[in-house]
């Protein structure tokens, strides 16, 4: 197990190094931030000076190594625009992002699990079809559209919920729901299909043959096994939520990392983008590492199974 963890860690490290290079190269290719930092009427001398000051006239490799060296010391650089430390900028917004990701995940699961379970148990019936189609509706509505519709309905028309912002619980409901709904279909369908698969397994039959009541057969024996692929999916989606909530953040004025990064990309604010990409992908990889470790709890056979893979 330990060696497995070590191996996973080394992969993780490799990926992070890769990410740092890719994001660095990308931003190198994508243009010069200096023009944007200075007013429209700046002279070319001013531009040159600023480039020099920011170290943008050094060779690319030097710039990259400088970045890595600093990053290792926990210094992700400073924003070219606000001149604030990148790490602080991101960490300031991370709680909001994590909070939103967490609540949307919770929202999606609370709706998806019952749907998935019921439709697996009632496979082929009207309930099955209806709930799956319902879940699909969630999938077929673009986030921003859903978000705006929700605002129009729940805030403007009904006046139940505040339109945007972060602070109270009421404010997280709509963004979490808008984001969660698109995952409902994903989770519900996965739950359904894995549960169907699990229900066909011999050990479920064994459990029934032992005379266990149905709620234990499903709730204990079947669900724990069905959780395994679900947990992987949750890990992946959670990772995506961290970086991909830009649209929801925009619609609901949620002060998360996504918007910060998009703004930074538009501004060619190299250090912020780089730092944020590093940080987000690190979180992604770590979440997935945790998911893998969660297998240890869900599936005692995991190290064996991995070894034989």
């Amino acid at each position: 197990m330990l060696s497995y963890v070590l191996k996973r860690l080394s992969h993780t490290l490799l990926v992070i190094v890769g990410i740092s290079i890719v994001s660095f190269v990308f931003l190198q290719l994508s243009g010069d931030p200096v023009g944007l930092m200075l007013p429209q009427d700046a002279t070319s001398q001013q531009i040159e000076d600023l480039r020099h000051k920011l170290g943008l006239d050094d060779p690319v490799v030097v710039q990259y190594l400088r970045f890595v060296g600093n990053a290792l010391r926990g210094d992700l650089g400073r924003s070219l625009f606000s001149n604030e430390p990148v790490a602080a900028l991101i960490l300031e917004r991370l709680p909001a992002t994590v909070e939103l990701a967490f609540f949307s995940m919770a929202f999606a699961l609370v709706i998806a699990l019952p749907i998935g379970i019921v439709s697996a148990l009632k496979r082929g019936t009207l309930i099955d079809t209806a709930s799956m189609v319902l879940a699909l509706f969630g999938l077929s509505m673009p986030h921003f559209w859903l978000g705006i519709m929700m605002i129009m309905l729940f805030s403007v028309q009904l006046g139940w919920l505040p339109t945007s912002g972060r602070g109270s619980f009421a404010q997280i409901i709509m963004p979490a729901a808008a984001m969660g709904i698109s995952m409902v279909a994903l989770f519900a369908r996965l739950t359904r299909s894995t549960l169907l698969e699990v229900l066909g397994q011999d050990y479920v039959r064994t459990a029934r043959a032992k005379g266990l009541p149905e709620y234990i057969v499903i709730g204990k024996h079947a669900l724990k096994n069905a959780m395994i692929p679900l947990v992987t999916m949750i890990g992946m989606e959670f990772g995506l939520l961290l970086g991909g909530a830009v649209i929801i953040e925009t619609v609901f004025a949620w002060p998360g990392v996504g918007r910060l990064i998009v703004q930074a990309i538009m501004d060619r604010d190299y250090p912020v983008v780089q730092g944020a990409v590093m940080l987000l992908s690190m979180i992604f990889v770590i979440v997935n590492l945790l998911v893998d470790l969660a297998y240890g709890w869900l599936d005692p056979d995991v190290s064996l199974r991995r070894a034989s893979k």
Partner: protein
Amino acid sequence: MEAAPPLLEIDGLSIDAMLADGPVRLVDGVTLGLRAGEVLGLVGESGCGKSLLSYSILRLLAPGLRISGGDIRLEGRSLATLPERKIRAMRGNEISMIFQEPMTALNPVFTIGDQVAEVFRTHQRLSRPQARAKAVEALAAVGVPSPEIRVGQYPADLSGGMRQRVMIAMALACRPKILIADEPTTALDTTIQAQILELMRGLQRNFGTSIVFISHDLGVVAEVADHVAVLYCGRVVEEAPVAELFRNPRHPYTRGLMGAVPQPDAEDMPDVLHEIKGNVPRPGHLPGGCRFHPRCPVARDICRISDPPRVAVGAQHHVACWEAADAS
């Protein structure tokens, strides 16, 4: 010579699969009886309905399958009409079951101890520690070495033979009247199989458990069973006490099966094995008349037209074959 009424009676049982293009009969009018303390062997080739028969006793048929006729009675009570709650209380308590695949029949994510203890907790309403203690006892009883350690292990940590012992321990936990063993040794190695067979025989000897023992291997059945029923395409074609059957097989299929298996310890080997020609037909594509007739070396015209009746040809020896019917 029918003494006490059988403990378990299967009476004209039929099972259908509900397919898109109509029902297909998989088990067709099977009648069998299991007496207290007896081992009833069921033999038949793959797909002849052995497992379905055993599942139907506990009403564990997969969705899409249903009992379309006949009845199953335990001590005179009909199981087929029992409410779900009652039948559930019976499972693992009065009737239990072991399955063919020890590798997959145990839930991989729970410990052995948990899975065995569950039976006690469900049927005897024991507390967690009590159930666990009983689980250790139950494992010890089926010859699992160092059961205190095993209870904390997961199925993956155990060998096939060990797992099958765990299954047996689980099945016997509540001292059931009837144990249904659906090919319990098929997946095991020959030397391990011999150990498990020995264990089953011990159970019957020591606890008087009645056993339905299912196998596709006539040799294995012959070793443990008192009474043997031979199935072909969802029907019982011959049924007799084990010694009688081997001495005097009356159905051509039974005779074919016996000749088709080369005996490793036989005195000498034939040059050519006795073969049953053709293939087992698929359900839904059964030939008319006697189901065996296309493969039967002694088939006659009547075999193609009409189903043979079940006739008694000796003490507790029944056959469904026109040849035997004519003879008697």
